[in-house]
């Protein structure tokens, strides 16, 4: 079958809010993991964890990466910090090429780029007092010494809402929310400009989750921090983000200002994702787009649009299984990867040549509104 790799170049021209130069700029980032077989580790295939991901983050901004497990959001976050070595692509932080850096430069840049992990229990050494854990970064980067460092550690603890006298305690003495605060204090210790927050509140209870979300926002305001916020909970993301990128099978399928994305999601996957979130209001009869089946394996992603086997867009047709949809601007600042959602750079001629029978058609199933049927969309695209 002919595979059309349409408009390769457009992916390298996206997504920045505002006019200032971005603090972080990611272009065509790729990460593949080999699948090996047999005792000699013969390569039998590869898992495409992150594929051609591009985005910018402006200084002081929060960009969120959302998606379901296995979509590549965590791998993207770690590849940016080079905690996982990317396979290809470009990462620029403050104009500097992160991928070209040697060990010494990398250590220096990590003072400015930090990460907060999901599970605060396993990210803290159980044999280290929390004072020592927080102090580690300060010592490595020679920021403060002796009693000045002690003062700094105590000040950090207070800043994240813990008592200064906790410095001598061990991680097991704290609750989940408090451990996450310790993780935040550790990241802050080196005065970073950019923090990757990898599911920082997923393991926390609702009331504690709200405390940590508010803390992250206060710290952002006070220290002019830039966040890459990785999460699967769309309600939390709404509260944290300026802009949101939705990932599916290693690709960004939609990227826009948070408000636009939640008001008018354009990519059919985002539409389904948003409609699936349970709403804490028993009076709302939700119109829910139920996706059939499971996410395909990233070791053998579908051809064309990665979402086409589960897509509910009424104009879906054979062209979707052939043409790889570029992430293109559908409305000012609103990018989506769907050749059936107009406007698109993939002309109707090209689509028809690829077996398309349904011309693009604007499709916006209403989100969160009452409806009679549970699954309003026929599983198969209509015939013309």
């Amino acid at each position, binding site marked *: 079958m002919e595979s059309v790799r349409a408009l390769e170049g457009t992916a390298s021209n996206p997504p920045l809010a505002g006019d200032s130069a971005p603090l972080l700029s990611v272009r065509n980032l790729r990460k593949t993991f080999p699948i090996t077989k047999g005792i000699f580790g013969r390569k039998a295939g590869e898992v495409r964890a992150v594929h051609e991901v591009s985005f910018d983050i402006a200084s002081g901004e929060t960009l969120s990466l959302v998606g379901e497990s296995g979509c590549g959001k965590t791998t993207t976050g770690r590849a940016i910090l080079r905690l996982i070595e990317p396979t290809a692509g470009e990462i620029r932080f403050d104009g500097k090429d992160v991928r070209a850096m040697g060990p010494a430069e990398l250590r220096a840049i990590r003072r400015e780029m930090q990460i907060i992990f999901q599970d605060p229990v396993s990210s803290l050494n159980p044999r280290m007092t929390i004072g020592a854990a927080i102090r580690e970064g300060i010592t490595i980067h020679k920021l403060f010494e002796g009693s000045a460092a002690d003062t700094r550690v105590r000040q950090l603890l207070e800043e994240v809402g813990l008592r200064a006298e906790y410095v001598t305690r061990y991680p097991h003495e704290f609750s989940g929310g408090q451990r996450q605060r310790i993780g935040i204090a550790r990241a802050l210790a080196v005065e970073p400009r950019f923090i990757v927050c990898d599911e920082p509140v997923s393991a926390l209870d*609702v009331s504690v989750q709200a*405390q940590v979300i508010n803390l992250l926002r206060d710290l952002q305001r006070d220290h002019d921090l830039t966040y890459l916020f990785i999460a699967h909970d769309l309600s939390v993301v709404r509260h944290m983000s300026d802009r949101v990128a939705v990932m599916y099978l290693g690709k960004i399928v939609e990227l826009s200002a948070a408000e636009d994305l939640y008001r008018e999601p354009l990519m059919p996957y985002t539409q389904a994702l948003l409609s699936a979130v349970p709403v804490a*209001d028993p009076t709302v009869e939700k119109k829910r787009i139920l996706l059939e089946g499971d996410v395909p394996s990233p070791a053998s992603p579908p051809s064309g649009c990665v979402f086409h086997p589960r897509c509910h867009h009424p104009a879906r047709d054979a062209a979707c299984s052939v043409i790889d949809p570029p992430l293109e601007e559908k409305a000012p600042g609103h990018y989506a990867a769907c050749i059936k959602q107009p406007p698109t750079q993939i002309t109707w001629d090209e689509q028809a040549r690829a077996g398309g029978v349904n011309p693009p058609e604007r499709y916006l199933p209403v989100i969160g509104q009452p409806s009679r049927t549970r699954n309003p969309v026929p599983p198969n695209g209509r015939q013309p």
Partner: protein
Amino acid sequence: MTQPLLSVENLKTYFYTGSAIARSVDGVSFTIGEGETLGIVGESGCGKSVTALSILRLIQQPGRIEAGSSIIFEGENLVTLDDSSMRRIRGNRISMIFQEPMSALNPVFTVGDQVAEVARVHGSGSRGDAWNRAVEMLALTGIPAPGDRAKQYPHQLSGGMRQRVLIAMALMMSPALIIADEPTTALDVTIQAQILDLLTDLQRRLGTSILMITHDLGVIAETAARVVVMYAGEVVEQAHVRPLFADAHHPYTEGLMNAMPHIGAARQRLNVIPGTVPPPTAWPAGCRFRDRCSYAWERCEQEHPPLYEIAPGHTSRCHLAVEPERREHPHLPLVENAGATR
């Protein structure tokens, strides 16, 4: 009203750990009617899972269901039932769906064998009958090609499929009650939507009662008819789902709802409940929520609040029920930051 299917009365489950007693479930009472879905909602450590395990008598040493507790199910008191009669009920009349489907399945047997085993343990019909029924149940839960899937092992299935297998297992003996303990917490949101839909649909068709245990108010709103809110080992509020969401009475329920980020709301600061849940070995005297409550006054410290009836079918464990004017005067809670847990 007719006799409820399950009636839990003053349930106390304590754990005797060394020097301290953890009063994880401390005087919980509720009922479930036939064909009803009751939701229990609360944060970790509130006692909701221990309540579920107590109903099935799956509490192990050093835990113990205290004398005076009663769990009446289909006319029998499960607390005093002997072990073999309890085995007859477990998996047969009451079944359970766990949170983590991978650890609830045995990796070395096919899923069909594991589903069929339920029928063999409860001694109904031949091996072949059990297998056929297992395939039938897998089909009922929406697993495509159930005959082939039944021959596969748990690792060959996705998370959503495994949860469907557990549901098929729970349905094998057509139980009167299914206890679902966080059945969708480990699943992605689109798969969660599928499973919640499946559970509500099965309940409508089969008339099974469901006890839905979750921390997610969204899941509660979409599945439950009545809701029990637990905090610190106690029921703090109980109501039908609509009045609960429209008119939450207990400050904890109110706080929980306000702390939840809403997908429809614009970017704004979240309201928080300060502090954390106290450890079950040291519940505060008086009202157990008072340290974190913005209304608490002297009475809350001195007097442990009973469950007040504030409307028909709506109860709340808060003195505001008798001194409603206090609601006009919120203040800062006692603990802005509860200390370390130990």
